[in-house]
Each structure stands twice: as C-alpha cells, then as structure tokens.
C-alpha cells in the first residue's frame, strides 16, 4: 500500500509533463517573440513619428533616408548576386567575393585618378565613365575566374568546409596584396563634374550619382535576368544549379558553367565597385571586407541561391541601415542611433533566419550556410 501511494504522485507528474511536452513550445516562443518585436518596432516608429515638430524629422529627411538607403542597397544587391550565384551552383560561400569587388574598385581608381589629372574625366565624362566600368568589370572578372581556377577547382570534391576555409584565405591574400601594392590609406576617387549636383525627376530631387546607381543596377539586374532565363548558357547554369551530376550526364560542361558563373559574379562586382567608389568618392584596401559582409548578409536575408532574393535582400539591407536607426531607435531616445546600424542589421538577419530559415525568398527550409 505504502508503495502505491508513493508511486502515484510521480505518475501524475509524468502525465502533466507529457501534456506540457506536447505543447508546440518552439512555435509558442516564436509567436511570443514576434509579437514582442513587432510591438517594439511599432511603438518605436510611432514614438519617432509623433515627436514634437521641432525634434521630428521632416518629409525631406525621410525622403533622403529612403533614397540613400536604396542607393546603398542597390550596390549591396549587385554584390550579393555574386554570392548567391556561386552558392546556387557550388553550394559554397565565396568569401573572397568582397575582395573581387575591391580589386575592381582599385583598377578603376588608377584610371580615374589619371583621367582626373589630365582633365579627360570632365571633358569626356561618358567615355571615361565607360572605360572605368569596363576596366573594373574586366579586373573583377579576371580575379574571380582566377580564384575559381586556383583556389576552388582543385578542391571541388573536398568536404564543404575546405573550400570555405580556402575562400577566407584567398580573401586575406587579396586584401593584403592590395595593401602591399596600393597602400593602406583611403584614396579619393575622382567624380566627373557632370555627376555633381542634383537632377529632379518626377518632382523628386536626387543626387545625380544616386540616379546613375539606381539606373545602372536596374539595367544590370534585367540583363542578368534575361541572360539566365533566355540564353543557352543561362539554361545550363540553372541545370547545374538543380543537379550538377545529371546536368553533366546531359552533356553540359559543368566546369565551363562554373567558370561562367564566377565571371558573371565578377562582372557585377566590377559594376558595383565603380558605383560604390563614385558614391563615396573613395577606395580603400579594406572596403571589400565590410561591404562583402553586408552583401553576404543581404544574400542570406533574401534567401541564398535565389537571384531575386539577393536583389530584395540588398535593397532591404540598405533601407534598414539608413532608415531603421532613424525610424525605430530615435523613438526610444537611443543616443547616436546610427552607430548601432550594424547591430540593428544583424538583429534583423537573426530574426529573419529564426522565422524563415531559408531567407525571405528562399525555399523555406533551412540551408546550412
């Protein structure tokens, strides 16, 4: 009898535990978390927008935040495409892609510097900008293709971690090569006088460089979209991305497709490099690292492997960095909100990955990145 009475409570407890365990805890935590975060965001934004007029941001300021964010985000998007294309095909993160971008920027810098000194940049702005773009694109493409040939192809069949480590090594190598050859100081990048000042389009006053950035990025995106959708090479790229073994059985030269992918990523990085250098009027051997990390974040945010995801992720990231601190942190009277822009960005990344592990436009399932 005594034994039975002892056992009874434990049985009851066991049954209770079982019921608790059956509750979908993961979901509950996620829901509570998302409600809490949405609440904080809404309250922050509300408090910012209802600040007394003398403290609040005016309409012009909001417009500027959005335009600045779009311009920066568009550049992230171009670089993010390089990450996402390579990932789609090789399932590897090319961590040296930021350095591919940096090399393109430096190549363009040397031409821009010479053209600025000779006055060619101002007398023939279209021609000289064209040359800058071509130089940067060719340089970035060459670096990207060489990277693939030297650092990644020999490791094609190695475990996935191995090329990842090589990529980091390659990134450090390129960074320090640039530092050794070009010096560690930030260099000013010449901007043709045609691009200084503003243009008014549909009643919106925009910096000319921002217009150039947005137009170029849209053109580059459309060109890439058409290339992937319409051309034979684009088709074979999609085939390799879907299943490289079957693709090779179908007669697609996988190696050639991979090289093409790296080349396209490099070309886009070259375009981004010139746009970035024109926007911030400077180049630096370390620029690839920070921008690369941001673009990689954008790719993951949008769903790595997805081209439209990369574009969306880039734009979102740019907007978040520009608009987020002003809109949400100002409401909580956080001092120096812009210093927190990166913490803010990565918080968003974490949240997206918690709720949608595959990224915004990803497959919805977790990819091991």
């Amino acid at each position, binding site marked *: 009898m005594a034994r039975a009475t002892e056992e009874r409570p434990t049985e009851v407890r066991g049954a209770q535990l079982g019921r608790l365990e059956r509750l979908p805890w993961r979901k509950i935590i996620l829901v509570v978390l998302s409600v809490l975060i949405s609440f904080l965001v809404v309250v922050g934004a509300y408090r910012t927008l209802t600040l007394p007029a003398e403290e609040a*941001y*005016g309409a012009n*300021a909001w417009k*500027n*935040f959005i335009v*600045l*964010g779009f311009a*920066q985000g568009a550049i992230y998007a171009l670089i993010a495409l390089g990450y996402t294309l390579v990932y789609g095909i090789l399932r590897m993160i090319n961590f040296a892609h930021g350095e591919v971008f940096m090399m393109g920027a430096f190549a363009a810098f040397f031409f821009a510097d010479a053209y600025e000194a000779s006055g060619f940049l101002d007398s023939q702005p279209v021609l000289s900008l064209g040359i800058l773009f071509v130089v940067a694109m060719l340089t970035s493409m060459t670096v990207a293709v060489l990277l693939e040939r030297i650092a990644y192809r020999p490791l094609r069949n190695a475990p996935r971690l191995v090329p990842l480590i090589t990529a980091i090594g390659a990134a450090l190598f390129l960074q320090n090569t640039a530092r050794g050859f070009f010096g*560690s*100081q*930030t*260099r*000013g990048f*010449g901007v043709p006088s045609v691009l200084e000042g*503003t243009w008014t389009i549909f009643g919106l006053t925009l*910096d000319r460089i921002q217009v150039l950035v947005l137009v170029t990025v849209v053109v580059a995106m459309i060109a890439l979209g058409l290339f992937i959708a319409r051309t034979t090479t684009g088709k074979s790229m999609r085939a390799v991305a879907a299943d490289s073994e079957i693709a090779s059985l179908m007669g697609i030269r996988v190696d050639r497709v991979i090289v093409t992918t790296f080349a396209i990523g490099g070309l886009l990085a070259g375009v981004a490099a010139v746009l970035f250098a024109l926007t*911030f*009027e*400077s180049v*630096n051997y*370390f*620029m690839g690292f*920070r*921008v690369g990390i941001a673009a990689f974040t954008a790719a993951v945010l949008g769903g790595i492997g997805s081209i439209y995801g990369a574009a969306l992720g880039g734009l979102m990231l740019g907007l978040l*960095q*520009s*608009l987020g*601190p*002003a809109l949400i942190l100002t409401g909580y009277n956080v*001092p*120096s*909100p*812009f*210093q927190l*822009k*990166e913490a803010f960005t990565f918080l968003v990344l974490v949240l997206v990955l918690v709720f949608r592990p595959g990224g915004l436009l990803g497959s919805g399932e977790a990819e091991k990145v």
Partner: protein
Amino acid sequence: MKNRKYLSMLALVGAFMLVAAACGEDDGDGGATGAAPTGGAVDCEADEFGCVEIPAGSPIKVGSLLSITGETANLGTDSNHGVELAIDYLDGAFDATDGQLLGHEVTLQQEDDGCSAEGGQAGGTALSADPEIVAVIGTSCSSAALGVADEILGAKGILLFSPSNTNPGLTSEEAHQPFYFRTAHNDLIQGAIVAEYVFNELGIDTAATINDESPYADGLAAAFRDTFEGLGGTITTFEQVNSADTDLGPVLNSIAEGEPGAVYGPNFNPVCALTATQGVDILPEGTVQLGSDGCLESAFIETAGELPAGYYYASSPDLTVFAEGAFYKDEFIPAYRDQFGTAPTAVFHAHAYDAANILFDAIEQVAADDGSGNITISRTALRDAVQATSGYEGMTGIITCTPLGDCATDVTIGLYEYPAWPVEGGTEPADPVYTDTKSLEDVQ
C-alpha cells in the same frame, strides 16, 4: 626520496638567488662608485624602477610608439621625422649624420601604435620588454596611450612622452600616469578655441558634433560642446559613428534635420574626409564643417579633393607662430624637406622634435658616467628631470611641464581654411584665418 629531491631543488634555487643578488649588488656598486663629471651619484637600488646601464660603445636606445601604418600613417610618420631630426641635430647641424649623446649613438626603435588601444597594448608591451629602452616618444593617438601604453610603460618606469596625444583624460587628476608627459596641447584648449571661433567669429549659434568614438574625438567633441554651450550656443546633435564607416549619408542627413550652422567632426581620416565630401550634398548650403588637428594632414587632401570655398576648416597648433623663430622656418623645415623628400604631412613634427630634445637634455642631466664611457641612467631621476622642465625654449614655444604631465601650457591654436593647409598637398600661403592663445589655467 621525494622530499630530498625537492630539498635539493630548493637549495639550487636558493643558490641561484644568492648569485643573482650578488650580481645585482655589483652593478649597483659600479654605478655608484663610477659617479662621473656629467652627473651625480646614481643610487639604482633606491630607484624602484632601477637603472638603464649603457656600456661604452653601445647606443642609447630610445623607442618610438607612433602610428606609422594604416589610415593615420601620416600622423605618426611626421612625428617620427621630428624625432629623427632631433637625433640628427645632436651634433649641432642638420646634416643627415646622426649626432651623439654623451659620446653614445642614439638609436630609435620604431613601433606602431596602430592608432588604437590594441596597437598601444602590443607596441607598449614590446617596448617595455626591452630593458635597454630608456624612454619612448609616443603615442600618436590618445586611444593607444590612455589606460594602455601609459600604464604598461609606466609600470616599468619607462617614460612615455607624446608629441600628439591631446585627450584631456591623459593628464587629468584621475587618470594621469606619473611617467607620462606630452608636448602636444590639451584638447580643453583646442575645443574652447574652436568653439569661440564658431560662435564669435562665424556668428553661428547652433552646431552639431560627430565623433568616431575614439577617446581623442570624443574628448574634443565634449570640450567643444562645453565651451559652445557656455557661450550660449546650442548643440543640435551629439552624434557618434564607427571609425570604419564609409557610408555617412544617413548620419549627416539626421544631423541636417537639426539645422545646425556648423558641423564639428574632430576625427581621424578617412572619417574627416568622408564627412566633408558627403556633407557637401546632404547638408544645407551654407553649413560650415570643422575638423581638428587629427583631420589636418595630407591624407585628407588626397581623399577629399576639391571642396567648396569657405566650407571646411581644421584647427591645429598655429605653425606660423613656430615660424616666427627663424630656426623652424630656415633650418628645420628645409632639413625636413631635404631628408624626407616632402613637406610635413601632419602638424606634430615640431612637438616630436621638442619632446626628443627635452628627453635628451634630461638624459644628459641625470646620466652618470664612470669615467670610461659607461653610463647609468636612473629611471626615476630621468622622469624627475623631465618633470622639472621649466621655461625651456622649444620650437613650439616656451615649455614648462606641469605635475600632471602637460608640457604645453600656453598654446596658440589656428584655424586653417581648406585647402590652405600647412601640410604636403595644401595650397600656399597656408596662414590660419583665425588664431588665439590660451593657457591651461584658462580652461581648467
């Protein structure tokens, strides 16, 4: 068995200690009995930090801990050149042949302060590990000294003498380390003069500040704010950014909303240059930007290129005051150009030159020669000799060291309109548009 093993070990250690102690005594005696004409008797045992002994024929080793790589390389390299010229001038002429001090050569061991606390830690540790280092000229950036190099070197009794640290904290009651001195001005003075210029001369009563969170920028922005608000001005935004940020558009846009008449960004490059170029498009027309002596160097000119006239100013020690002494203009600067192939790249070469010379004078005062060229320098005595510097006629002015390590007590700060800057790449004539002199008592 085991115990006996320990016992013999103990005995061995004991024996070693005895021998070591005997050696130590020997050295002490050598120093004391060898009191020579150049200095008084040196009691190395009484000095808690001991002595540096330099045998005849060996060089006197001085360290430099300056920012010689990376974005702020101009700043540290410029100061290093000042020290190198001081060593050159030990023989009384700038002839690219190093002079001697007390019959010894002087060698300069250059370390990099990296313009960061980490750099100060690494470089300070490297220098403090070398018992032959007599003193260190450095650091370039306050971040490398404050609580880092000043403590590491101070703990070994190695004098740290900075040509360009300006953060007020370094010489404050709370944080000052006894072995730390500087010939650079205290930013309480620089911040006050810039604030007065903006408020009184430019007639602007609203200003925003933007700093890159280094102790230097933070301290200077705070000094500016205090004076500016004291004058009756309003600080619209006190903003911080990261020193590695490239995209400063959103911050400037946020600042522009407060409609400040002036934006004060006392940072290092490239942040100074980037706020200048990006501000042109974002800040309302007519807004003035100001930087400080960290901005005023060649890298700014290279990065920023052309800027609108009357848009950007930077403060610095007024170099035209140094040029009133013929030595700076007629001997020092030509020698600098000759030997390094460039005009000065930053504004602290003269401070470095003065710091090195005060140090050499102090070494001459306290070093004891045993008659055959072996010299002994007591670390504490060396510190006391530098501390006692009073009325020294340096290139930067009359130098008197206060107990808290500030050796520049009366400072003339000038504001230079870009691009008429007194560094390589600036346009001539590089005269300040405004200049004012303050002493430490005025601002403390």
